[in-house]
């Protein structure tokens, strides 16, 4: 049974700018325009423009909005000041991951959860179910996803390109993981404007009204042209985030994996003072120690590790690759893989099974690429 793919407000723009459209999580999205390597390099050296309108946005308002977030989110949202953003995860009772999210505090009792495109329906159901089960009624929950478009501009020149377009904001004063509401961008009143991203470079994410997205996209491309701004697709988005050690749901995290196994323990605030779903399981796992760990690997023999390829040691399968590629920035074949804790030390040698052959790889430090966030 073929399902019709959803399209973002930028679909026509993608065709106009030569985007090669592919199915992604139920959406028809551009995997590349000029080429994955060229777009990847542009983001590292100048700037790239991404359509991220397929992402989901849930609005939570009211006195119990924070209570709901604290219940479903592993991080401590009580620490958020107005305008602040934090990365977090939602977990099931057994500690495995529902989704990774961004939590935005937009007002005293006003929050947004930004969720992955492929998980919107699941997450929306989950958040509502949790609110109901916990009897949290003094709050308003709205799924804004269908009404909100989103564009990300990422790269060392992103701020330079953006500043003339946001005359009412001094970008030097907007810190990493902070947001503003109602910022006028290229003459359009945006909904949320944040210094966040998924590439390991400085950049901004602009959440706008769906009907403004296409015009904003063109305005940004025009303003950025002299600086080398190019449209960038999902292919480059994946290689960029992977080099910077950012997880992707369905790869490094899933409903079979916990944040602790994925090396995201920093975001799991077991001591935040309120209970959250999955807390007991995660505390127990922390106490006991994880049995498997996510590590970075680099090939020693010639070959490229890919998602799903098995990791073996002395002839026995012991793990799996979650993401792998030939890195455009580093010019090396690298990957993320789950291996037994005992094999997770730096320099540890493992085999990657590629088309039936055991090819040697070693555990290396991550991130592969050192992020250059605005600090």
């Amino acid at each position: 049974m073929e399902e019709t793919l959803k399209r973002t407000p930028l679909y026509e723009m993608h065709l106009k700018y030569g985007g090669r459209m592919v199915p992604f999580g139920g959406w028809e999205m551009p995997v590349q325009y000029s080429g994955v390597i060229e777009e990847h390099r542009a983001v590292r050296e100048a700037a790239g423009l991404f359509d991220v309108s397929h992402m989901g946005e849930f609005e939570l308002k009211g006195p119990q909005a924070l209570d709901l977030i604290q219940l479903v989110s592993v991080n401590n949202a009580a620490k958020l000041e107005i305008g602040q953003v934090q990365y977090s995860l939602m977990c099931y009772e057994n500690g495995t991951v529902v989704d990774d999210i961004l939590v935005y505090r937009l007002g005293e009792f006003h929050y947004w959860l930004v969720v992955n495109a492929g998980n919107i329906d699941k997450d929306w159901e989950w958040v509502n179910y949790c609110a109901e089960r916990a009897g949290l009624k003094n709050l308003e929950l709205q799924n804004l996803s269908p009404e909100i478009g989103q564009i990300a501009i990422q790269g060392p020149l992103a701020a330079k390109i953006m500043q003339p377009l946001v005359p009412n904001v001094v970008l030097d004063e907007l810190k990493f993981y902070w947001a503003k509401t109602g910022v006028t961008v290229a003459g359009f009143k945006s909904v949320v404007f944040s210094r966040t991203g998924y590439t390991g470079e400085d950049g901004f994410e602009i959440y706008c009204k769906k009907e403004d997205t296409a015009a904003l996209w063109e305005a940004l491309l025009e303003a950025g042209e002299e600086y080398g701004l190019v449209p960038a697709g999902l292919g480059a988005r994946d290689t960029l985030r992977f080099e910077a050690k950012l997880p992707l749901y369905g790869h490094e995290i899933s409903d079979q994996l916990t944040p602790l196994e994925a090396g995201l323990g920093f975001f799991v605030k077991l001591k935040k003072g309120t209970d959250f779903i999955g807390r007991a399981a995660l505390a127990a796992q922390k106490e006991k120690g994880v049995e498997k760990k996510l590590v970075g690997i680099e090939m020693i023999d010639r070959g490229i590790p890919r998602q799903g390829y098995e990791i073996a040691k002395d002839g026995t399968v012991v793990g799996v690759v979650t993401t792998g590629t030939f890195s455009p920035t580093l010019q090396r074949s690298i990957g993320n893989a789950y291996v037994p804790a005992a094999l997770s030390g730096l320099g540890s040698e493992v085999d990657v099974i590629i088309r039936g052959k055991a090819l040697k790889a070693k555990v290396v430090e991550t991130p592969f690429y050192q992020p250059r966030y605005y600090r």
Partner: protein
Amino acid sequence: MSGNVPANLRYTKEHEWIKVEGNVGIVGITDYAQHHLGDVVFVEVPAVGRVLKAHEQFGVVESVKTVSDIYCPVSGKVVEVNTELENAPETVNQSPYEGGWIIKVELANPAELDTLLDAAAYAKHIEEA
């Protein structure tokens, strides 16, 4: 995108081309294939001496995002592989019919060539794709 389809070559439906010089067939992937693959970053070639059957998978061409199997259009023994592709895999994109050749095989059965697509048939095949 139909791309370049040289008239003097033979083709497979899987987008390989073969150029015959005497008893040796030179094999690579077509312009259409390299365009759809994107930036080639890795080519896996068989060992010299390996004996292949027609339509047998003999290696892969990898882009950043995908792994693509490549199949030998004819039966024969591998007599040479393009070692340049180890350090310059992008040659497959830049010159798919010349510098980007992948293997050379000694033809076991030249009659097999007649079963392959000619340029017109291949051009039609990719037009309809």
